């Protein structure tokens, strides 16, 4: 069922069993799981069914410390959320990503990768991927030309990705949600305040505003925040009438530990002869678009005390004209959506006879309490303080990238395959300095981190906000660490996990 909240009488009371705030990858996949339950689910979406600049303007904020994508277009504020312009890169986090690593401060998830595997398999289906197979050996069996580079597997291995069509969740899942009797989708219903009880031990309700100025109330037994890591933190912090520091923020953790992925050209490789690189280059293996990136093993990360990272091969040598995407990504979200939805994704092609490749890094960011979302003094059109970004790094971040390529250079040399040249920015002797070619992945994580201890995490291992009986957080906000790979598959897997937990409680 769909209701445009602008058409309701002002002051309407919306009631249900479960209220999901935000209809992006997490919110929609959760709502889909509740279709057969008969429970009354309220799915609140701040925008409509299409991208609109006026709604995106509510997401405007400043990047205070360093360049970043324009915040009003980096995430999307309409049904389907940021899947409206994602590229479909999917891969599960590695086992080491879940471990407590003594060289990575604040690392460690409350469960391991094996625990998440069944949810990953289900998430694979929501994102229209192939079989839940992320071992390169499986893909090597699908195509005789697909072979990994002969490197020491104890150091480097091919980390597999699958590529979603990409699933535009607002398109693919609109019909089943709108047709469902028990799921009540409200569009243009933007939550501006979470209202706790007097003791701030449970949530009494939500204040919702529409863009035309109406205000409504929402009441449910359970609430799930699924607005993305930036706006989850914003809403918790801004709901500060009864909890002065914001909800769930007794220990000053909400908004902190903001993480992205470092995406940056970092090196080039000269092979002695053109390598058999199909596995790494062309995302089409059988019916599934899939490919590998060069990844560093968990054991090597332990030995070297570095972060997790991967590198992809891009044909051709460094040009000296490498650029960041921060400046080129438009602040006009409508234009971005149009551009990204018109993209034709690469099919199976014959690899060119290249011997020189640029190496493009994806790497996790070390959790850092000083890297954070903060409320600004300026308010948006609906009266909410804007979310500003302080994206800050640690020396471990850069040292890890440098170590990765030094080790890759040694391994390619040992194997007699070629040589690696690191870019100057990795060798400038200052691990606090970053070049202007740095980009991120539009991946926002870690602002409501998960930990058993309320002093170290905003939410508990089930995603429940510590100290609040009926408020949960979904999405990348709860990640204690961000892994090397794109977060969407894990966002959906975690949403399904949370959904199962809530269904058991219902």
């Amino acid at each position, binding site marked *: 069922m769909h209701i445009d909240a602008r058409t309701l009488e002002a002051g309407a009371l919306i009631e249900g069993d479960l209220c999901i705030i935000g209809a992006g990858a997490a919110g929609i996949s959760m709502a889909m799981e509740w279709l057969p339950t008969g429970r009354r689910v309220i799915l609140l979406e701040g925008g409509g069914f299409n991208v609109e600049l006026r709604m995106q303007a509510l997401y405007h904020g400043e990047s205070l410390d360093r360049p970043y994508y324009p915040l009003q277009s980096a995430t999307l504020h309409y049904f389907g959320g940021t899947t409206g312009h994602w590229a479909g890169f999917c891969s599960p986090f590695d086992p080491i990503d879940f471990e407590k690593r003594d060289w990575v401060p604040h690392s460690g998830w409350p469960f391991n990768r094996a625990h998440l595997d069944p949810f990953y398999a289900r998430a694979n289906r929501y994102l229209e991927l192939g079989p839940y197979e992320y071992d390169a050996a499986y893909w090597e069996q699908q195509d005789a030309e697909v072979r990994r580079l002969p490197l020491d597997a104890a150091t480097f291995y091919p980390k597999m990705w699958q590529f979603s069509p990409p699933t535009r969740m607002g398109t693919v899942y609109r019909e089943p949600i709108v047709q469902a009797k028990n799921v009540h989708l409200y569009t243009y219903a933007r939550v501006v305040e979470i209202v706790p009880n007097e003791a701030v031990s449970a949530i009494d309700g939500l204040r919702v505003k529409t863009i035309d100025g109406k205000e409504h109330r929402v009441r449910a037994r359970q609430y799930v925040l699924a607005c993305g890591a930036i706006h989850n933190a914003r809403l918790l912090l801004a709901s500060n009438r009864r909890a002065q520091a914001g909800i769930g923020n007794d220990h000053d953790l909400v908004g902190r530990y903001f993480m992205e992925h470092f995406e940056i050209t970092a090196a080039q490789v000269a092979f002695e002869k053109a390598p058999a690189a199909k596995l790494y280059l062309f995302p089409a293996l059988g019916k599934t678009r899939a490919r590998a990136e060069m990844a560093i093993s968990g054991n090597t990360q332990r030995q070297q005390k570095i972060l997790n990272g991967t590198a992809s091969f891009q044909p051709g040598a460094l040009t000296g004209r490498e650029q960041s995407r921060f400046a080129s990504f438009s602040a006009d979200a409508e234009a971005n959506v149009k551009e990204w939805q018109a993209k034709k994704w690469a099919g199976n092609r014959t690899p060119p*006879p290249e*011997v020189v490749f640029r190496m493009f890094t994806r790497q996790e960011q070390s959790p850092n309490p000083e890297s954070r979302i903060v409320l600004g003094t300026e308010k948006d059109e609906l009266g909410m303080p804007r979310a500003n970004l302080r994206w800050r790094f640690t020396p471990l971040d850069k040292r890890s990238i440098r170590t990765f*390529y030094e080790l*890759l250079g*040694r*391994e390619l*040399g040992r194997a007699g395959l070629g*040589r690696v*040249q690191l870019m*100057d920015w990795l060798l400038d002797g200052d691990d606090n300095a970053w070049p202007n070619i740095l980009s991120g992945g539009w991946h926002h994580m870690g602002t409501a981190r998960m930990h058993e201890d309320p002093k170290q995490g905003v939410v508990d291992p089930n995603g429940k906000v510590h100290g609040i009986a009926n408020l949960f957080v979904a999405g990348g906000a709860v990640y204690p660490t961000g892994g090397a790979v794109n977060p969407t598959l894990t966002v959906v897997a975690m949403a399904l996990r949370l959904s199962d937990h809530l269904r058991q409680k219902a």
Partner: protein
Amino acid sequence: MKRREFIGIAAATAVGRGWLPSAHAEDLGPAALARPRLLGILRNPRAVHALGRQYRTMVPAEADGPALTRALLGAEPAGQDAALASRLEEQVRRDFAEGRTTIVGGWVLALTEARQCALYSLLNA
């Protein structure tokens, strides 16, 4: 971009004329010592020359021919050129495997091949 455009320097330069053109070649040991595999990988003698010169600046103790020859050969005699080439190749592989590498001009090089580049730069000075 193909290998010949890599680094963007043409091969037909004074340093790319061939092997051991210098009058001092015999003072600087057998030819294989100054024939780094990197020449075959980069196919850019000028770049290899520059890397060798940079290595000599980085490691002043190995800035001259005799010092580099000693560092490359150790206590063992040079032997035949072909055998020496094979020995050096294995030495390069072992350098990489055992982490005896150095970064010169951003390139991760085996210590042996960095010394070979240095010798090459001397021979083609």
